[in-house]
Structure formats: structure tokens, C-alpha cells
């Protein structure tokens, strides 16, 4: 099985009212939805195509308007696509029987690497790539973006952790007077420590629930914004159960650690000092 793509930059002059020859003889093209919108093209319109401003000669009929598959690589590009039959494009380019690449489907069970090596050996002038090699190369952009996101996430986690530690410390310190009174009336340090820790855990747990809610809302807002901005159906922010679990676990652990450290400091302080008289 083979596929024969030929990709070229074309210039397009759109004019629905072009005096066209008999439509049945015209090449058909399929136009990307955004291009159709920008040029107000509809199925049945005729357009002229060319490779240079002084040679826009090929008249074609818009046979279809299609929605391209959402592709992250394309979101920020301004190029618009249209598709046409290979012979029509080859004729337009003045390069009959030429293609940019072949797609080759192997018989099941054939090792891909040896097939690639055989093609490289036997067909001088060709370069053969496995699909996985092309995928790896074309996904390099996303790997970079992914690494960047991960780095930003680490910085954000550090900032959040410090923020959390700070808040928990303040939260526990707010209880100075209460802790002093409890100590005055004979409540044991362990009991006070437990109560403060429980409070810290509750605060961290409630914070996690609220934070998860906020993350879902922020994720939905991010997706809505970017989908509208880039006119795409791609998903930009994905709050997965794994991410929620990681965030909740981290927040709880940090919250409890911070709460425990602050509570420990508090119960070790003399009650009179807590009361402000020591």
C-alpha cells in the first residue's frame, strides 16, 4: 500500500464569479474550513491557483470544505491548506510524475528497520524513514514544550510549597493564646499538639478540595480561551486524576509537616511567653 503526497506552496486567487469553463472538466479541490471562511468560499465556487503571482492560471472547483484534524504543530501558523488530486497538482507545478514522498505499508510481520535499510540500500536518491522515526522527529517540538511545562511546574510547586508552609505556620501561630490558656488549665502538650495538627490537616484537606475545584475551573478557562484564540479543538489544560492525586498528596504532606513543625514550636514554648508575659 502506498500514498503519494506532494506538498507545495501555492498562490490562490479566489473568485466565485470567475467566468469558468464547463465545471465538469475542472479539477476539484477541498478547502480547509478556515481558508473557506476567510475567503468566503463555498462548495461549487471556482478559484484560480498558481505557483507565482504571474502564473495563477489553474481554475478549479471547490468540491469540499473540510475541517483539518486538530494538530498542535499547526496552531500558531497562518498558512492555510487545500487538497487536490495528485495529477492536478503535479500538472500545476509542471512536474508530472513527481512526489515529495511515498508512504509504504509493510506486510505484517516484516521488520521495519530491515525494510528501511533495504530501501536505503537499493534506491539511490531516496531517504527512507520509519514512521516511528518521523514521529520522534516531528514530536520534538512537543517534547521541548513538555520539558518547559515541567520546569515551570517545578518552580510553581516550589512557590506553592513555600506559600503553604508560610500559611500553615501563621495558622498555627494564630493559636498562641488558645494554646497558652490550654496549658494554664493543665491540658497536656501532646493533646494541644494533636489538636493543632488536626486543625492543620483539616485546613490542608479543605484547601486541597478548593484547590482541585479551582484547578478544574482554571483548566476549563484556559482551554476555552486558547480554543477560541487559536480556533482549534485541541485540549491545552488537562487535569488528570494522577495530577490531582499528586497535588493533593503533596499539599497534605507539606501541610501536615508545616503544621507539625509550627505546633511543635508552639507547645515547646512556655505558656507565659505564649501569653505575652514571659
Amino acid at each position, binding site marked *: 500500500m502506498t500514498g503519494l503526497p506532494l506538498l507545495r*506552496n501555492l*498562490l490562490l486567487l479566489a473568485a466565485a464569479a470567475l467566468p469558468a469553463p464547463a465545471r465538469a472538466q475542472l479539477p476539484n479541490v477541498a478547502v480547509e474550513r478556515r481558508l473557506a471562511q476567510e475567503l468566503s468560499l463555498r462548495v461549487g465556487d471556482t478559484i484560480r491557483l498558481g*505557483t*507565482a*503571482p*504571474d502564473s495563477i492560471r489553474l481554475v478549479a472547483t471547490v468540491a469540499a470544505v473540510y475541517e483539518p484534524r486538530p494538530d498542535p504543530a499547526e*496552531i*500558531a*501558523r*497562518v498558512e492555510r491548506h487545500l487538497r487536490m488530486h495528485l495529477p492536478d497538482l503535479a500538472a500545476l507545478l509542471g512536474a508530472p510524475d513527481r512526489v515529495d514522498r511515498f508512504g509504504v505499508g509493510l506486510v505484517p510481520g516484516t521488520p521495519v528497520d530491515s525494510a528501511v535499510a533495504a530501501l536505503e540500500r537499493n*534506491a*539511490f*536518491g*531516496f*531517504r527512507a524513514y520509519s514512521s516511528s522515526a518521523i514521529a520522534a*522527529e516531528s514530536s*520534538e*517540538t512537543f517534547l*521541548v514544550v513538555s*520539558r*518547559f511545562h515541567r*520546569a*515551570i511546574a517545578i*518552580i*510553581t510547586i*516550589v*512557590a506553592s510549597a*513555600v*506559600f503553604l*508552609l*508560610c*500559611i500553615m*505556620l*501563621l495558622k498555627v*501561630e*494564630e493559636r498562641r493564646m488558645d494554646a497558652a490558656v490550654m496549658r494554664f488549665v493543665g491540658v497536656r502538650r501532646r493533646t494541644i499538639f494533636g489538636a493543632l495538627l488536626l486543625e492543620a490537616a483539616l485546613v490542608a484537606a479543605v484547601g486541597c478540595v478548593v484547590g482541585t475545584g479551582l484547578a478544574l475551573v482554571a483548566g476549563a478557562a*484556559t482551554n476555552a480561551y*486558547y480554543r477560541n*484564540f487559536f480556533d482549534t479543538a485541541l485540549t491545552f489544560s488537562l487535569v488528570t486524576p494522577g495530577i490531582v492525586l499528586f497535588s493533593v498528596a503533596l499539599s497534605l504532606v507539606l501541610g501536615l509537616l508545616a503544621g507539625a513543625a509550627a505546633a511543635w*514550636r508552639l507547645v515547646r514554648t512556655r505558656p507565659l511567653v505564649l501569653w505575652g508575659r514571659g
Partner: protein
Amino acid sequence: MRVVAWGLRSLGRQPLRTALSLAGIAVAAAMLLDMVMLSGGIDRSFSDLLLVRGYQLRLTPKGTLPFDTEAAMAGASGIVAALRRDRDVEAAGAVLGTSLYARDADSLVTLFGYGIEPEAQGLYQVTSGRDLSPGDTAGILLGEPAARLLQAGAGDTVTLVGRLDPQVAGAALGSRLVVRGIVRWLYDARDQPSVGTVLPVMQRLSGPTAGDRASLILVKARADDQVPALAERLRARFPAVEVNSAAELVVHFRQRLVYFRQLSYILGSMSLIVTVLLIATLLTIGVNERLGEIATLRAIGVSRGTVVRQVLAEGGVLTVLGAALGILLGLLTARYLDAILTRFPGLPAAFSFFVPRADTLGFAAIVLLVTGFRAGLYPAWLAARAPIAATLRAEAT
């Protein structure tokens, strides 16, 4: 005593709390600085890169950007000659970019070839050896990656192969060329193996369809302020080519990387929110803990203004210290993030996403200071409005 010193001592009363707050502000400030650098750095870095050799205009095939496609302009020599006759043009040079190969023992090495006019080029800087002379059809320039790949240096001979097409009988049109010098190609991606010859050699290697064609024409105007008018004039004169000034190319490039600008705005805003929350929370709790003190100050005749200034000074001290730490941290993290992002395939290796400049640092510092000041407003208002008698009564119990 001065309010700043007073603020410093107040913060020193709770060293752990202050240290944690400073750490939080520093991380948020670092993030803010990075995002400010990112939002403006893309434009600045690209603009600097485009103008590094002083060529302010680029002419490319209609509807394309430089080296964005394989398209080429026909009649390049005529366009260049016309440009050189223009009174506002100081220099103009055509460039043809194409894939080609070099023989390396029994195999072929894929290279990218630039056909240039050495007398007017804006694509490279010679790092060792010498430049090509105009009309030097026997010489070649190698970029560092190509030199490594071919294990060649100045004075060595390399064989280039072009017109590789199995359907053409003369499958491999070879040229033996002497390496004149090693250069740094300004717009090459990291590790891109590029070589350069004079334009006619590259046109010949590129195949019969490349005669008198160019991918790009670089134009240097005599004065920067003439660039917009010159661009307009060239557009009218050469309707079949695309004329872009550096500023316009920056706009195109910005469009490509708009995601990062957007992200920088979002993350920068989040950093500011975190900073505000941290400072406001810390100061509010500090004020609440010291309401008795504040009521006493008010009772002995200290004005609301002094109380407000004192709370704001505490916020200011926190912000300044946190921002100072944050800027140092931000510069470090920017290098780390830049190292990640500059791995983008196809991006010029000389390009930088994070450009530390005095104006960027200043802007981030001002934003942080204003943020810190604004974060202190609520606790300052709280302190100023504390009812004296009621607070003193509450303190006495």
C-alpha cells in the same frame, strides 16, 4: 527612627515567618522576572538577530517568509541589480538555500547549502580562516557543525553533490571545493550542518531549475528611518516578491510563538497574585497581632499616616528583599528555561527566549514594588482604622 529600619526590626521579630515569606516572594518574583523576560525576550532576541549585520529588509517569494519553504524567486540577479541602483539602498545580496550532499568515504552526508554574494551578505560571521571573495567559484565556507561532520578545516578540499534525482541521468553533479574559512551561520538551528558557496555555484548544484533564482534577498537601507518608505517602494516595484522589514518579520515570528507570550502573561499574573497574597497575609496577621501596639501608638499621638507608613514600609522591606533574591533566582532559572526552549527544532541557535536587560529587570522590579505596596494597603488600612479605646480595653483583659 526611620520607618524602614523599624519595618526591618518588626520583621525580625518572627524570623522563621519572615524567612518563609521571603522565600515565597523570591520564588514568585523569579517567576515574574522570567515571564517578563519571556514576553519581551522573544521579540528582542529575534529583532537583534535579524539586525545583527544591519540588513533591515528581506525579500522572499510571494507569500513566504525567509527559508520557510522551498520556493525561490526567479530573476534574482535583475532584482539585486535594480536594488543596488536604488539611492536609498546601501547594499543588497541574494541568497539561495538548498539541500545538498557531501561525499564522506562511501556515504553521503546531507547538508544545507547557502549560495551567497560575499560582497553583500548578512548570514554569517567568519570565525576562522577567511571569507569567500566575490566570484570565488572554487571556495567554500563551512559552519562548525558541517566542519565537524566532514572533519574538514580551512585549506581542506570537500566534494559537494547536488541534483540528486534517481530519474535524472546525471544523478550526482559533484564539485570539489576548497574550504576558505569556518563561519557561524547566524540563522542556523543548533547543530545544523551548513555550507556556503558563491551564488552561481549553489545555483548550479541546486539543479537546472535554480538558474538565476534566489530564496532570499537581503537589503540594507542607508538609514533606519528610511526603511518603512523603502519597503513600501519595493513592494510597489516588485509585486511578485514579499518585502518584509525586520519589525514585520518580528510580528510574524511573534505570531508563531504567541503561545509562549500568552503563557508568560498567565504565569506572570499568577506570580503577582501569589506575591500579593503572601505579603498581604503576612502583614495582616502581623497587624492583627500588634493591634494593641498600634492602638498605643495612636493613643500617644502617633498619626494614622505614620502607622500606615510603618505597615507599608514592612511590606516594602519584604518586597525589596524578596525581589532582590527573586531577581538572582530568576536569572538562574531563566538560563535553565532558555536551555530547554532553545532546543526547539529549526530555531536559530543564536536565538534566546529570555533576554536579561536593564529595562526588563527594571520593569519586573517596579511591578513587584508596586505589587508589594498595594498588598500592604489593606493591612495598613486595618492598622489605621483600629479603634484605640476598644483595642486598649481588649488588650487589658
